Structure formats: structure tokens, C-alpha cells
């Protein structure tokens, strides 16, 4: 297994290979290559429905994470006993929502997708941003991940946590 990448929408043209490559780089930085991960790209309609069902928020958003392990200590990797527990969970990317954000802020879509995926992976690893302390801890982790990513790739990605304190 590895990264299961799905594109369920037709609103935003996506480069699957590029997104996969970036996600693989993030996994390498975090040392989570042995864990399966799902990255699913959806439109506003779908992410709004998921947001409504699971968070009672009837509106589209940028990212929703569904951890396989729900009680992880932030940053502590799980030690599963069985092979089929080598799974971190799924990340739903609201690509239509993110595309609109990119257009408003003149940013590169695939860069934003990678930053948002890093944010989503942090959630799968137990990070939260419901209190100020949690927010600082998560921002620190995201900054570390993206600094390493930028060092490897020469790009200039910035953490999502900086911009949004409620969603994801």
C-alpha cells in the first residue's frame, strides 16, 4: 500500500502525479512511509456534505481529516501489532474551495494543496488547534515539516495553521 489518491471532482484540473510526489516527500520527512494514507480530492458539494455530517457545519471547507487512530499523542507514531493497522487515515481536500482561495490570493494551487495536506497529516498524527497551546504546537510542527519540504524541493510553502484556526 502507500498513498491512496483519488480525484472525485471535475471542477479543478489536478496533476495527480505532482500531488502524489509532494505527499510522498511529506511522508518521508515525517518518517511515516510504512503507514497507508488516503488523500481524496473533492468539490464544494461533497466537502460541504461531509462537513455537515461529521461536524454539523453546512458549508464547504478546505480540508477534513479522519484519523485511523483517534487518541494519538501529538507527534507520537502509533505502534500497531497488525499489518492492517498500518494506516493513518484519510484526508479530504476541498480543492474547489482551495482553488478559489488561490485565485483570491494569487497562489499556486498545487503548493496550497501540499500545505493543506501537511496540515491534514498533522491532524492524523494527533495534533489539534482547539486551544492556543494546541495551536502553537501544531503550527510549530507544520512549520518544521514545510521548512524541510522547502529545503528538499526549493519551493516556498507556508503552514495552513497560520491562516486558519477553526477549520480542518
Amino acid at each position, binding site marked *: 500500500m502507500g*498513498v491512496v489518491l483519488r480525484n472525485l471532482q471535475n471542477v479543478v484540473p489536478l496533476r495527480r502525479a505532482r500531488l502524489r510526489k509532494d505527499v510522498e516527500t511529506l511522508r518521508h520527512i515525517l518518517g511515516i512511509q510504512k503507514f497507508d494514507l488516503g488523500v481524496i480530492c473533492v468539490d464544494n458539494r*461533497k466537502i460541504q456534505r461531509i462537513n455537515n455530517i461529521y461536524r454539523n457545519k453546512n458549508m464547504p471547507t478546505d480540508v477534513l481529516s479522519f484519523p485511523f487512530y483517534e487518541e494519538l499523542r501529538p507527534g507520537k507514531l502509533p505502534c500497531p501489532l497488525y499489518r492492517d493497522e498500518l494506516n493513518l487515515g484519510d484526508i479530504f481536500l476541498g480543492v474547489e474551495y482551495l482553488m478559489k482561495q488561490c485565485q483570491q490570493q494569487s497562489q499556486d494551487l498545487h503548493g496550497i494543496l501540499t500545505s493543506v495536506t501537511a496540515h491534514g497529516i498533522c491532524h492524523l498524527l494527533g495534533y489539534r488547534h482547539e486551544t492556543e497551546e494546541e495551536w502553537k504546537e501544531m503550527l510549530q510542527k507544520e512549520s518544521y515539516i514545510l521548512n524541510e519540504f522547502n529545503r528538499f524541493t526549493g519551493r516556498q510553502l507556508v503552514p495552513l495553521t497560520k491562516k486558519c484556526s477553526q477549520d480542518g
Partner: protein
Amino acid sequence: MLKYFSRAVSTAVGISTTTMFSARALQPLTRSTLCSPNSGTIRPFSRSLWMLSHNGAASVYRPKLFSSKGFTPVSCGCGSLHTDGDKAFGDFLSDEIKEEKKIQKSNTLPKMSGGWELQQNGTEAKLIRTISGEKVTVTFNVNNSVPPKFEEEAEQAQGQKSAENEPDIVSSPNFVVEVTKQAAKHSLVFDCHYPEDEASHGEVEEESDIFAIREVSFQPEGDVEWKETAYTLNTDSLDWALYDHLMDFLADRGVDNTFADELIELSTAMEHHEYIKFLEDLSGFVKCN
């Protein structure tokens, strides 16, 4: 309900047609032994059941299993067999054709975006496009393109018992994409399909791509026999990075999720059109031509 049920019957036509053909081959024997001045031509099917329940043949003996009403032949002088069953069938088909035409969205087929040229040959269609010297051809056939309804979908429909809430019939055909570069001897051919769980639209749990590549191979360019000895890449156990590159390759040539969704619309309209045409031909065949 009528629309859905009639479609279920239409998919079974293949089976009943086969039965009728084999019965037709027995007809000459039937006529010579059973024809009487009063009974006219007796259906082969009824003969086989008659033989089960009676010993010996008597030309004036009426089979007990069937009433004379159901099998009174109609004579119109055209030389073909006409029975009350045929008349009922013809009447049913007339109603069915009217109903299907009522729900037909349009007499014209929906257009594909992206400048695709449509060529149709019966149930097979080709969409052709040229991009910077590359020719891309997408071929599909509407036969066997309507996935079967599963129990849970039928139960969902039952939960809201009204004709308006019946699930629409959707055609999601397998399709083949051929990409041919200028002056190339071979085309790169992708065998694509719509994964089954994507057929249930509107469910949060659906997590398959809208369409998927099943196999990839190089094939001789043009309408030449499929080369069985060409290596065929099966995506079942393919490296996912390679798979994503193949999907991006197709997307760059206009075969992306938008295309896949529009293809379903086109195929559904075509399939419906062909179905109505088939019913009309069937109606003409059953009635007196």
C-alpha cells in the same frame, strides 16, 4: 415503475430471444403433425407442453393446459403468425414506446465539450479529437452499459414509493482511448471503465475515481486487428505513481473527469434512443408488417 420494469424485461430479451429462435427451428415438424383445419398453426412452445401431458398426437385433440382463448390464432393474410399474445404484446409495446418518449430528455444527443467529433455506427460511437498533431479517439458501445441495480438501491427506492423517485437508468460504458502521434506506427491504447461503486451517485462513502484505467498497450494504428501478442499493462497491481502519470497523460488530452461525466450523459442518451428504436422495431415486427 413501468419504465424500470420494462428495462428489466429488455435486458432479459436476449435470453427469451434465444429460446424463440430454437423453438422456431422446430416449427416445420409442428405444422405437419398438428395442423388441423380448425386450429390453424399451433405455437411450438405449446406443443412441447402438450407432449408432456398427453400420449400420442391427435389432430383434433385440444391441449388441456391451455384454453382456446389464449391461443386463438388471428389470420390477416400476411402469412405470419399472429396470436392474442402477440396483440397484447403489441399493445404493451405501443404504451411502452409512448412512456419512454415522454421521459426522453431530448431528441438530440448532448454535446461533448472540448471539440470532440462524434461518429456513430449503431450502438458503437467514436469521439475524435486532434490536439497539436495528436489524434485521440474514444470508442464505446452502449450495449451492456447499464449496470444492474443492486438490492440496497431497490430498497432505497422503496423507501420513497413514488414514480418520481425511481432511480434513473444510467449508461456508464467501458471505453477505449487511442492516442496516435503523427507518423507513428502504433497507438497507445487505454482500456477504461467506470468503477462500480461510483455508479451510486450522491453517497458520501463513494471513494473511487470517476473513471479508471484498466489496461494499457501499444496497438497497430488504424482499424486493424487487435494484437494479442502486444504487452498489456494491467493496472490492478501497478505502481501508483505510474498510474497517476497515465491519468495525467489522458487528462492533458482531454480525457479527464469532466469528459468522463459528459460521456455518461452522452451514452445514457444514446442508449435510451437505441432502446426506443429497438422497441419500435420490435413493435413493427410483432404487429402485422
